[in-house]
């Protein structure tokens, strides 16, 4: 099995071979490439199994730190998360190199990317804000996505040529990052409502003592929505430029397009209402959760049960 490695890497590699490695060794070029591919395949298989385990341990550490105040967990949680992220990143890169296409061609490849985006976005939040205690609630979603991905992911070497476009990469990555952002927004909205309820009803347990304050939760949830909305806008704009050119059976009334437009409008109206009417606190947080639920429905149900040109798997 000779594996196709992206041209740029091949060029750099062969340059290295001509410049540094003596003539006699050059014959090994193909040989090395062959072994390299095999090795990479084994490593990818191993990481596929390892990632859910890694995410589980990370979530476990965050839960221990949040609920049990464990000192060991507090010390290990963030290094564990960063380690998992590095391995996940390497995994995605290796898949891209080995299978010669970015891992966006099946729902389960996409789930892995969503999982990575959620965990990475949380890592940024943890380093930039004081909300260090919320990891458990967010990373558990990353764990679930990655577990589904690892269970059902397939190794596809052959994909539709249309899925190798550069614009597509841009389109999909902004959409997925947007999805990660609204997921995080919904989690913070959920935490907001929990804390809101706890304070209102004078129950001062773990939720009361450990979560960031209401104002901060609301701010982070809304910031995530704004980021998600911008990313969705980019994804839709790129899609509208590229889709009509790429597909013969393109239609503006494709279920997925209609769904997406609806979601986009919903977030837009919500943000507008916040700005103009001054919706605050509980109301806007409930809206965020509803909007996320609808988006998730659109991502899964529409993909599985409706057919249209915007369906690849």
């Amino acid at each position: 099995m000779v594996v196709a490695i992206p041209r740029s890497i091949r060029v750099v590699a062969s340059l290295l071979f001509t410049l540094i490695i003596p003539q006699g060794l050059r014959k090994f070029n193909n040989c090395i490439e062959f072994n390299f591919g095999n090795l990479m395949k084994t490593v990818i298989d191993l990481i596929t199994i390892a990632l859910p385990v890694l995410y589980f341990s990370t979530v476990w550490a965050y839960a221990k730190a949040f609920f049990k105040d464990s000192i060991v967990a507090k010390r290990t949680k963030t290094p564990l998360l960063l380690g998992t992220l590095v391995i996940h990143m390497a995994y995605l890169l290796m898949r891209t190199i080995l299978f010669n296409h970015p891992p966006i061609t099946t729902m389960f490849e996409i789930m892995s990317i969503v999982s990575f985006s959620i965990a990475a976005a949380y890592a940024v939040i943890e380093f930039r804000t004081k909300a260090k205690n919320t990891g458990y609630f967010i990373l558990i979603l990353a764990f679930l996505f990655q577990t589904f991905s690892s269970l059902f992911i397939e190794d596809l070497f052959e994909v539709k040529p249309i899925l190798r476009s550069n614009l597509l990469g841009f389109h999909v990555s902004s959409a997925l990052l947007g999805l990660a952002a609204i997921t995080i927004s919904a989690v913070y909205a959920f935490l907001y409502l929990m804390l809101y309820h706890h304070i209102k009803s004078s129950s001062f347990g773990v939720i009361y003592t450990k979560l960031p304050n209401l104002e901060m939760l609301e701010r982070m949830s809304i910031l995530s929505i704004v980021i998600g909305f911008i990313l969705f806008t980019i994804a839709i704009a790129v899609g509208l430029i590229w889709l009509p050119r790429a597909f013969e059976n393109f239609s503006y009334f494709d279920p997925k397009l209609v769904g997406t437009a609806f979601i986009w409008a919903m977030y837009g109206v919500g943000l507008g209402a916040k700005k103009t009417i001054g919706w605050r606190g509980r109301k806007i947080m409930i809206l965020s959760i509803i909007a996320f639920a609808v988006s998730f429905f659109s991502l899964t149900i529409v993909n599985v049960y409706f057919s249209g040109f915007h369906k690849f798997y």
Partner: protein
Amino acid sequence: MNLLAVGINHRTAPLDVREKLWMSNDEIRKAVAALKGNPFSECFIVSTCNRTELYGTYDDKGNAGAPPDTNSLKDFLINLKARGDAVTREHLYTMSATGAVNHLFKVASGIDSMVIGDIQILGQIKDGFNIAYEEKATGNFLHRLLQSTYHVGKRTRTETTITEGAVSVSYAAVELAHRIFSDLSKKSALLIGAGETGELTAKHLVGRGIGNLFVANRTRSKAEELVAALGGKIVEFDALQQMLGQVDIVVSSITTQKFVLTRGDIQRAMKERSHKPLFIIDISVPRNVDPEVNKIENVFLHDMDGISSIIDQNMQKRKSEIPRVNEIILEELTEFYNWFNSLQVNPTIHDLRTHFEQVRHEEVEKHINRFSQEDRELVELVTKRIVNKLLHLPTTNLKNGSEESEEEKHKKLSIVRSLFGLHKERSKKE
């Protein structure tokens, strides 16, 4: 260990008795000066409204090695301040040696305080010690003891959570505000009524950097006093409804028969403030604010019931930290004892001999191969002799120091220890 402690605290005496024994700094100074030399070689006094304690060490030589009479020490404390028969010997407790050290560590850690985890006590111990230091009533022993005491205090604060969580109404209220708002400096608070708890709460809010403080009181002069002390602005009592749109925190503590704030008031205010969260603390009994108000969206109303449940919970949490504090105390006790023992003659001689023997042994081991089989035994013998001869005089000199005072003996021993690096060896062994 010739340490003795005599004292009074909330366990042995009611407040009106305890406060009779409370001493000002000047009184402490006088008492320390009186006790210094006789019966104590070193001593210091800690005095707060909840406890007054006297710690002292005595010499072996004076009084034929017997400890000072505890009853006369009790009488000394009683007669120093309290006239009349309010305070009796039964109100006071005495402790000696380990018991006294253990007690001092407990006091410093806050687990012996009336409010568990009270952080002020360590500062008060420092103050008491500083006065004694100025009076030249402290020496080697107390210095080291206090060093360990501060260490206990510091470690309980950093390694346990015994000082965390509000255990007073005013702190709990401010803590609650922090669960709702992230930056108090951008928020405003309105204080209704100038009662004691309300004032304390306002004080804590100012301490946490509240942006604006408004005070409304039926008697304007009292509000003026408060504003003069804490800063802020006065609001006419009749105009306080209009303020609700502008403030984020309302603290109400006024004695009144009917509600000061009704559901209608707050609903109107919420519209005016475009539904920004409003936090209301009602710390008066009977209540000032209609409980129905809590049903309005983005309004958080808490009364004394809620606040006291926070306090109970925090108290429980503090109590659950006591075993961890005790571990720290035990560690520090051991450490202190090691130090104390090291200042005794015999352990020092033992350590000194072990050190020399170790050096000798290492050197012989290193070079033994250069000697023939039959010479090796001889080398052992000779080197051992040299070491013994070298150590003979220092050993007898250390042993013959009995007519020196405790202080001089300690000094001598610690010089020997630091010269030969014996402190390090002791800790290495552990």
